[in-house]
C-alpha cells in the first residue's frame, strides 16, 4: 500500500454552535505513529471519534486505505471492524471476563473459530503479563491493567490502524508507564497508530509525527524534535511552555 492508511481531509465537526473541528488535514502512512497534542477542548478526541465513525463528520472526508468511509452509503460497521479504538476510560465490558472482552469481536464480528481466537488472545495477554487475569472481571483489575487489556482487545481484531484517545489520562502516574510500554511495543511491531496524548515525553520518543491542534485546525505538524523542540508557531510555544510548567515534559 503506497498511499496513507488513514487520510483525513478537511474534516469539520460541530456540536450545535460549537465548531470543534474547522477543517483538519492529516495523513497517516503505514507503520507511522502520529501523536495529536493540544489543549483540552482542542478537538483531539473529536477527531479520533470522527475517524472511527463514532461521530458523523459535518464536512470533509476520512479515507481508510483510499476508501472514503465518510460516504453515507458505506457500511460503517464494516469500516469500524478495520480500526481499533482505545478510550480514556478503558470501557471494558464489566459483565465479561478479561478473556471474553478480548475474544468478543474476533469471534462474533469476524466469525473466526473460537479456539484459534482464544489461543491468540492468550498469547497477547501473556505478552502484556496479564495471562493469569484472563478469567477475572475488569473491576478486579487496576486501571493500568484494564487499559492494557483494552489495548489488547483493540488489537485482537487485527486493525489497520489503532486510535488511542488519551489512554493514560485517567491513570495514576505510577501506572502510566506500564501502559505506555505496551504502546511502545505495539508501535515497534509496525502498527499504524494515531494517539491523542498529554505525554509529551512519550510522544517525542515514539511518534514519527507530532500534530498540534489548536482552534479546530492542525496548526503545526512535523517530526517531534521540531514541533516539540523548536516550534514555529507562537501558540505551540505557549502550549508547550504551559505543559512544561505543569511538569509533563
Amino acid at each position: 500500500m503506497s498511499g496513507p492508511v488513514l487520510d483525513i481531509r478537511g474534516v469539520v465537526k460541530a456540536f450545535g454552535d460549537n465548531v470543534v473541528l474547522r477543517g483538519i488535514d492529516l495523513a497517516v502512512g503505514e507503520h507511522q505513529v502520529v501523536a495529536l497534542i493540544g489543549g483540552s477542548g482542542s478537538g483531539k478526541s473529536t477527531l479520533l471519534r470522527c475517524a472511527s465513525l463514532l461521530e458523523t463528520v459535518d464536512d470533509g472526508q476520512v479515507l481508510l486505505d483510499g476508501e472514503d468511509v465518510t460516504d453515507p452509503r458505506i457500511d460503517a460497521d464494516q469500516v469500524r471492524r478495520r480500526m481499533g479504538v482505545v478510550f480514556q476510560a478503558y470501557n471494558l465490558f464489566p459483565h465479561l471476563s478479561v478473556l471474553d472482552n478480548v475474544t468478543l469481536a474476533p469471534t462474533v464480528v469476524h466469525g473466526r473459530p473460537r479456539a484459534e481466537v482464544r489461543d491468540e488472545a492468550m498469547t497477547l495477554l501473556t505478552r502484556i503479563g496479564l495471562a493469569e487475569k484472563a478469567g477475572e472481571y475488569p473491576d478486579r483489575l487496576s486501571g493500568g491493567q484494564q487499559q492494557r487489556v483494552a489495548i489488547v482487545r483493540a488489537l485482537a481484531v487485527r486493525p489497520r490502524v489503532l486510535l488511542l484517545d488519551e489512554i493514560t489520562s485517567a491513570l495514576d502516574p505510577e501506572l502510566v508507564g506500564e501502559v505506555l510500554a505496551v504502546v511502545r511495543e505495539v508501535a515497534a511491531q509496525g502498527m499504524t497508530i494515531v494517539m491523542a496524548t498529554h505525554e509529551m515525553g512519550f510522544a517525542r520518543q515514539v511518534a514519527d509525527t507530532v500534530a498540534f491542534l489548536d482552534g479546530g485546525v492542525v496548526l503545526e505538524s512535523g517530526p517531534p524534535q521540531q514541533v516539540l523542540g523548536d516550534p514555529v508557531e507562537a501558540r505551540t510555544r505557549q502550549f508547550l511552555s504551559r505543559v512544561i510548567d505543569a511538569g509533563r515534559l
Partner: protein
Amino acid sequence: MDQGAGLPQPSALELSRRAWRRSRARRSTLIGLLSTLLFAVVAYLVVTNAPGWPRVQTTFFSPSVAWESLPEILEGLWLNLQVLVLGGFLVLVVGLLVSLTRTLRGPALAPLRILATAYVDLFRGMPLIIVLYLVGFGFPALGLQGMPTSPFVLGTLAIVLVYGAYVAEVFRAGIESVHPSQRAAARSLGLDHRQTMRIVVLPQALRTVTPALLNDFIALQKDVGLISVLGALDAVRRAQILVGQSFNFTPYVVTGLLFVLLAIPSARVADALSARARRRQQSGSLL
C-alpha cells in the same frame, strides 16, 4: 474481614470501644423486643375487647370454615398459578420487545416506535380492571371465528397487556442506564446495533433491573386474582362462591393469606438480589 489472621492484637482502647458497642447493641435489642411485645399486647387487647369481636371472630376467622374451604380454594389457586406463570413469561417477552422497539432509530422505523410508545401510554394509564372488562367481554362480543372465550385466556391477555407496558418501561430504564461509552466501545469493535444490544447492553441492563422486575412480579402475583371478575373459577371466585353459600367471610381471609404465602418467597429473593447489587456496586466504587 478475611485477612483477620494478619491483624495485630487490638489495643485496650479498641477493646473498650468494642465492649461499649456490644452493650449498646444488647440494649437496643432489648428495647426492640419489649416495644414489639407491648405493641402486640395492646393490639390484641384492643381488638379482642371491641364490642363486635365475637361476631368478627366467627365470620372471618372460623377455623372449621377455613379448613372446609381450603381444598376448593387451593384448586382455584392452581388456576391463578397457571395465569401467573404463563402471564409472567409473556409479560417479559412483550416488555422486552416493546422496550427494544422504543430504542430503534431512523425515520423508517418511526411507525413502530410510535406504536410502541402509544401502547405503553395507553396500557400504563388504564386501570387493570377496566382492561379486564374490555378484553374479557369485548373480544368475545366481536363474535369472530376462533376468538377464544375462556376467561383464562382473555384474563391472561388483559394482564399481559397492562403488565407488558409497565415492564417495557422498566427494561427501557435499564437499557438507558448502561453508559453510552459501553455502546461506543462495542461499536468501535465493529459490533452492529443488534449485537451491541444483545451482547453488551442487555446483559448489563438486565442486571440493573432485576430487583425492579421482581417487584413487578410480586404485584402480578396478587393481580392474577382479578381474573375472577371474568368468571374464571380461580381462588378469589371460589372464595366468593363459598362466602355466598355460607355468609361466612373466612374463605376470603384464607385466600388472602394464601396469596401472601405465595408472595413471601419472591419478596425475599428480591431483597437478596438488591442487597447483592448494592454490595457489588460498593465494591466497585472502592476499587
